[in-house]
């Protein structure tokens, strides 16, 4: 069987202590929360570290105030998906959390972990022996990109379901590092690079996610994958909109799994502002939203099909908004 490498497991009692440990160990250490993605990657030697810094100290609460909801980073994905406040006020977020992987993994995986989950590529998510036979890629042990050999960069795919939704909802994360605490919009947490996909400093721990409640806020997440469970997204649409009457006052559409970071579909949002969500508008917006998506041949099914499906998932997500209380004309 594939065995875990030997490693030291550290148990800090606070985020500040964890950051200190991370700064001291540098690239030889990683944080671990649920570990549902990390442990298999250790077995496949995609991550080679000698120390894991456990994040058991993270809170497990969801605090719902009148203007915002704060979710501790240690909340499990299954708890987030079942939480009545989240389901009521931020339905798309609860939905996205409930669509990650499978029930056993959602019971272990955390919302903080899913925000930080590694980018994926089917040339990279393989065992050491397979990658050695294929020729190592630049994301681990090699120096070229196997999906786009002439490209100077890595095209691994952002594969979080909750990150696009958190961005669409204007979420803000709290980061605790050596230099103290700071807040960062989730949209600023990512970079367009398959390797250095996170913009936070390596010693910083995501300790919570804050979602702001707004009157008339509706949200939906549609995930595309081959099977009803287990699979990572191969495309997805997170949509959040603030309604004034039956027109859209503001909206944000973020795509999952079609780039190395959650892809903001700004043109579609500009188009939607001030419009009513009738069928034609939905179709036009979906067309605009799909344009920047450029999936490559490094995830399940063909990238041509995935590209065509982006429009469909955006439409479906927009249509789902109208199913929510006080729905739209369609």
């Amino acid at each position: 069987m594939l065995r875990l490498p030997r490693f030291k497991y550290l148990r800090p009692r606070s985020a500040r202590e964890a950051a200190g440990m991370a700064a001291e160990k540098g690239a030889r250490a990683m944080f671990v929360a649920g570990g549902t993605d990390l442990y298999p990657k250790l077995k496949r030697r995609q991550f080679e570290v000698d120390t894991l810094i456990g994040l058991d100290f993270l809170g497990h609460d969801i605090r719902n105030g009148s203007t915002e909801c704060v979710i501790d980073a240690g909340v499990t994905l299954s708890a987030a998906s079942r939480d009545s406040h989240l389901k009521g006020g931020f339905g798309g977020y609860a939905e996205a959390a409930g669509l990650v992987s499978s029930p056993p993994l959602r019971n272990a995986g955390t919302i903080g972990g899913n925000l930080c989950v590694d980018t994926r590529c089917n040339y990279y998510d393989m065992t050491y022996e397979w990658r050695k036979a294929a020729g190592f890629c630049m994301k681990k042990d090699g120096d070229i990109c196997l999906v786009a050999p002439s490209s100077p960069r890595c095209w691994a795919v952002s594969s979080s379901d909750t990150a696009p939704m958190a961005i669409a909802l204007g979420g803000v994360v709290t980061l605790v590092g050596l230099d103290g605490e700071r807040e960062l919009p989730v949209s600023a947490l990512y970079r367009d690079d398959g390797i250095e996909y996170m913009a936070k400093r390596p010693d910083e721990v995501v300790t919570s996610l804050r979602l702001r409640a707004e009157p008339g806020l509706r949200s939906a997440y549609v995930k595309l994958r081959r099977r009803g469970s287990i699979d990572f997204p191969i495309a997805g649409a997170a949509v959040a909109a603030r309604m004034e009457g039956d027109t859209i006052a503001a909206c944000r559409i973020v795509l999952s799994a079609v780039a190395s970071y959650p892809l903001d579909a700004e043109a579609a949002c500009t188009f939607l502002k001030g419009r009513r969500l009738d069928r034609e508008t939905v179709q036009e917006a979906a067309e605009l939203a799909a344009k920047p998506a450029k999936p490559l041949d490094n995830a399940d099914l063909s990238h041509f099909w995935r590209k065509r499906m982006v429009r469909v998932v955006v439409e479906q997500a927009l249509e789902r908004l109208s199913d929510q209380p006080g729905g739209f004309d369609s």
Partner: protein
Amino acid sequence: MKVVGKPLPKVDAAPKVTGRAVYADDMLPARTLHCKILRSPHPHARIVSIDTSAARRIPGVLAVITGSDLPVKFGILPVTQDERALEHEKARYVGDPIVAIAATDEEIAAAACDAVAVEYEVLEPVMSIDAALATPKDERIQDYGGPNNVHKFVALEFGDVEGGFARADHVREDVFFYQGNTHLPMEQHSAIATYVDGRVTLWSSTQVVHYVHRALSRVLELPMHRIRVIGAAHGGGFGGKTDPFAHEIIVAKLAMITGRPVKCTLTREEVFYAHRGRHPVLMWVRTGVTHDGRITAMHFRTALDGGAYGSYGVASTFYTGALQPVTYDIPAYRFEGCRVFTNKPPCGPKRGHGTPQPRFGLELHLEKIARDLGLDPVDMKRRNYVKPNTRTVNWLRVTSCGLEECTQRVLEASGFKTRERRPGRGMGFAISSYLSGAGTAIYWNDMPHSEVQIKVDRGGVTAYCGAMDIGQGSDSVLATVVAEELGLQPSDVRLVTADTDTTPIDLGSYSSRVTFMAGNAALEAARKMRELLVQAVAGAGKRYEEVSFEEASVLAEARFGTLTTAGSYTPPKIAGPYKGSGVGPSPAYSYSACVVDLDADARTGLIKVNKVWIAHDVGRAINPLLVEGQVEGSVYMGLGEALMEEQVFRKGLHKWPSMLEYKSPTFLDMPEVETFIVETDDPEGPYGAKEAGQGPLLPVPPAVSAAVYDALGVWIDEVPVTPEKVVEALRRKDKGETPRYGPQRFPAIPYPETIKVDGPVGHQDGTC
């Protein structure tokens, strides 16, 4: 009957669900060494040199072996002894075993593998049927077969094919493709060996204890009596553990070298390389029919992508042509098959061995013919059904046949004929047949295929049989047969199975043979034992039914001494009078019919299966619970093949050798399955029973594809039926092109001249 026909739990259910069952990987005798195998990173390469010196120096490494330590070739079929446990001359696929290392723990063995330096001379890989048919750029993969990378040709012709086509009112040709896929057993292959007092003992997760025994003897160059093979508790095979495997030979050799127990458990990735799964098959079929849809002649061609070694491939090739006439009365039939070598893990037998592919093509082909003629496809198929107690044109003997009853059951239950018609919703219908055990052994011999001994003493009953329970329930069937005859419960019967030292032979859990053959052997042994008991009780002036079993056994033991009986089963010699007639004959055939109901989304091409109705003619259900389990498992596996599973390659490598990326349906993807057991009371099966483990898979893929046509009006002429293919077929339909996705052509294959065989006289009259 008291226990036959009752839905009793499996006799081994408790140890399996409580974790008490001991699988090979659970075994850890004192001083066990762990083995890792270094595999080729190249699909096709000459091995120039292997330097193991650095690996040998690593502390904890006790033995390092290469192909020169195990040079004798082996293979499951006597005609294709082309494998080595370790290759030291040439690597033929990514994953081919090159070096094996035994160390005190697994990490050390893995690190030592990484320290081995192998120098390769890389050769051009051959990765497709077309490439295999062409002149190789560097060299052929194997040094036998040919031309080019052809492994095996089959060309047979039964009856007057030319005349059959001449009298047809309509002739149609189609091309289909069935992608390869793998078994995906829950338990990875595992084996552990000891070497004590000059004797090897191997515990393995295998389906074929006896054939592993023979292969070990051959490669280790030890007589069979110095080798003992024991089947460990088994976590699923589906045909994937039916060959002797490199790791089984390797651990035995390493145990002989080190004198310590040596264990090897394959990783999931290595299981994908061990493979022996479904052959990718390209098919061409041409059929002539009369105005009313009666078949007058059929010509079926197949091309199998065999992977790098022979495995069961010769048999697989025959099987792609053998069973077409077992469901439909085909008066004249020509079959041409061709298997090629490619630089991929070897293909072999997977549930349905060589027959799901032609079944897919045949069922869809007939659907299309019916539409050409303006006939209802189901009615047209039924018009051609074979009749019980007939011989097919290729000399296969059909006895019991519940095809018509199976068809009625699923049509009625599903409401197929009155189904709701709306875009995106469809139903598909298909039928199939499968063997209840191959009529011939893997190697030529006249001995029985299955043997059972029964011992009774002091009120206890023990049955001994070489049969290997791979989860299909063969232990339960043995216990049930013995219990029924002796008037006991299955739980009263102790079993000793799958151990070459202590049990008489059974050839193995393949070809759906165990219930039929071991069941008949058990029946004979149990009836003999009952006779002894009855006689002894009668001698005491009583009737067997009046006394306790303890009393009967004491009376019999006192009168006759040691109480043992034996039974055996040898299939009837019913093969036809032609070369190649050994593949296809079976003492009985099971029959299945199935209806699939699905929704297909025209925008995404995604398919949601709503329900499957399936009827299976099992002859007699010795345990209906086990039969339903086999049928439902077959439906699951058939849906996986139909919709998503594919063993595919990219740049010479298996594209996704992992359970996350190789897609197989999850619980959520599994629809409701309604199973109907049809009983036809086969004259030769034990209590009338036939097989259930493989046949019910066969109708599922064509029924899925037919349902997609029903839903969207497009033909997907290949599996898996993926969303991208559906979307592409719809695009073609919208553009006014042929509303179809599938292979465009069948390659020109230099088949040899056919062997012409007359069909049996009066073959469908029930007179032969």
